């Protein structure tokens, strides 16, 4: 086990480690360096007048952090939380944010050569926060750019009704 997530291989290509998780049948990955910890699903307090994908806030050892539901964010069908539901706690530009996903699956080594650009899905698809696609063995993993995903305006600025 190496402490660094980025390893140089003999061929010289860069390998990054990704934490992969599932949403429905799809598999996603986020850079492991952004992950602070993984928590079981605990009580979330809703916040009024925020976008639906912001589930609310939770207590992380005395700090109050917002929690984002990726299913809602990706306009997927909502699903009741169960014992596999986890909250991945990530750090994005000094802010600590919880992300609800169905389940975490693995830590993958992904070489830069394995990453393909996101195919053009047409104008209607919002792919800004997709960093690329990686094929690892049989699986296709969608690599998320968590910075772009969670630092959007609605997370940081007040869109006041006033």
């Amino acid at each position, binding site marked *: 086990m190496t402490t660094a997530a980025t390893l140089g291989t003999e061929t010289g290509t860069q390998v990054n480690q990704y934490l992969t998780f599932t949403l429905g049948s799809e598999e996603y990955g986020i850079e492991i360096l952004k992950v602070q910890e993984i928590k079981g699903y605990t009580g979330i*307090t809703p916040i009024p007048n925020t976008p639906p994908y912001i589930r609310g806030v939770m207590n992380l050892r005395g700090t109050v952090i917002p929690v984002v539901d990726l299913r809602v964010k990706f306009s997927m069908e909502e699903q009741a939380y169960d014992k596999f539901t986890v909250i991945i706690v990530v750090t994005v530009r000094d802010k600590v944010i919880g992300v609800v996903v169905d389940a975490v699956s693995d830590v993958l080594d992904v070489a830069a050569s394995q990453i393909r650009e996101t195919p053009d899905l047409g104008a209607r698809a919002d792919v800004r926060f997709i960093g690329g696609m990686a094929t690892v063995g049989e699986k296709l993993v969608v690599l998320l750019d968590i910075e772009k995903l969670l630092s959007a305006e609605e997370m940081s600025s007040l869109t006041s009704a006033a």
Partner: protein
Amino acid sequence: MEFDISRFRDTFFQEAEEHAATMEAELLRLEQGGGDAESLNAIFRCAHSIKGASGTFGFDDIAKFTHALETLLEGMRAGRIEPTAARAALLLRSVDVLRELLAAARTGGPPPAGVEESAAQLVVAQRADWAPNAPAVARVDDSAARPYRIRFVPAPEIFLQGMDPVLVLRELERAGEVQELRVDLSRLPPLAQLDPEICYLGWDLRLRSEKSAEDLRDVFAFVEDGARVEVEPETARPALSAPSVRAPVRDSTSIRVTTEKVDKLVDLVGELVIAQSMAAEILNNFTASSLLRLQEAFSEMERYTRELQERVMGVRMLPIGSVFSRFPRLVHDLAEATGKRIVLEMSGEETELDKAVVESLGDPLTHLIRNAVDHGLEPPEERRAAGKPEQGAIRLHAFHQGGNVIVEASDDGRGLDAAKIRRKAVERGLLAEDQPASEEQIHAMLFEPGFSTAEQVSSISGRGVGMDVVKRTVEGMNGAVSISSAPGRGTSVRIKLPLTLAILDGLLLRVGEQTYILPLVAILESVRPTAAQLNSMAGQGEVVIMRGEPLPLVRLHRLLNVPTEVTDATRGLLVLVENHGRRLALLVDELLGQQQVVIKSLESNFRKVEGVVGATILGDGRAALILDVAGLAQMARNARGVIDR
């Protein structure tokens, strides 16, 4: 009024020491040519603060000395006097004298010698052609050794010339103190190739010497041929400052706690540990009959925990009254000095703020009061002529509002002269001649550094430092400051401070499955309404009649979008809250109780949310939102506005 000022003497000395340290650091920068207008401003503000505070505490010699200091600084700041290194050096020495004065005042000892002379120097130094008089400077320059960095690489054939580099090093040793000597072996060949008659070595040394670089160079006169000799002063810093540099101590993040308080905390933790081990003991030998004892042990632990929490919080929180209480004396003295009749009214002294915030409020409030007395309040005759009571009033008022603590300092004097401020702003180049500016914008000009409209510079105020210090200090605490004024009716400065660190007395209430907290200060009462009290106004919202007065009824579940079964107001509870003198009835499911909660910021990881001050952690570990009455009122108005359209 019975008033003991001695309690705040320690604070004064601590603050003065901090100011002196800041002045020193900035002066050092200035002396090295690194300072800018901002450093001058900073130094000036420090001197001004010490002057003001020492006057309050009756340390007249300190006030007098800092006045001299300040006058010179003012000239430098305004650009009338050139801030030369020599002047900076003089000021540095003056800071040392000031420190001695402070030490003498603290111990009650005799004032140090040479104060008068120093003060006189400061006055003389205002002359444009001033130069530090020769003997003093010569003495200063000679008395202190300067650091040099010397590199000496003798010519390889130095031995052939009959010279010995060691002799040179000895000579250097006599010229000063060698602090570091490093031999450069980089040219040394392997032993087999070494020629014993060739010098392969070089030396790097750091020397502290009183001699000049030229004198030191002379040491190398006989070995210079073919050698590399570098003699450089280590820094450009003049001699004077070098020996007396003290690292400025800024303990802005620390708080002073009496040992007594800490001891009490230690005791409490001890008690808690004992109570816990007792509970553990009961559990170890648990039988049905020990249940009662277990309950007792738990309630004991709970009691200790609560007390511990209160005391830990108490370490940080301080009523604002502790800073207010220095002002009666100040106002009294100012009244005497100006011949004005003044009454000081204070309210909200019990408002608690973080200790650090309370302490930092001292200086800005002092400035505001000085300004109010000096510029705001009119002399008795003028007041009489204007039909006002002869006695002018200064009011200090602290209160909670929304998630903030507001401190207002107001007077009933002549108010601000917008035309005069405008003229001054144009003069200073802050505003173009024909540039339109609202009254608000013009008032805001007062917060610019060095902006003063006083015709006469007095020792009370009128140098225009007050307001920019106020602004800086308040903004440093993440607060905001604003000023409002009505001609002939007075001026009011409003300082708004965030409550981020504060604890809040809250009322826990339930809406649906959610628990919310309302600040207790905003709550008037809670009632269960009868159907007869409820009315709706033609689809424009609901009202509840309380003692004949119709109040808007706000359904929290609707406002916060929380599902609940209690939609019938007669089955829920109405919490009556007040905001800006306007009342509002909030419909909730039920009240859960009263509790002190620690406010956690939502903004640090998320953002500001309308109608919410922050969050807190409940006993069961869940996060709960603390509601902001002002924000809720606004949201309710907006919601109705939508219906209106």
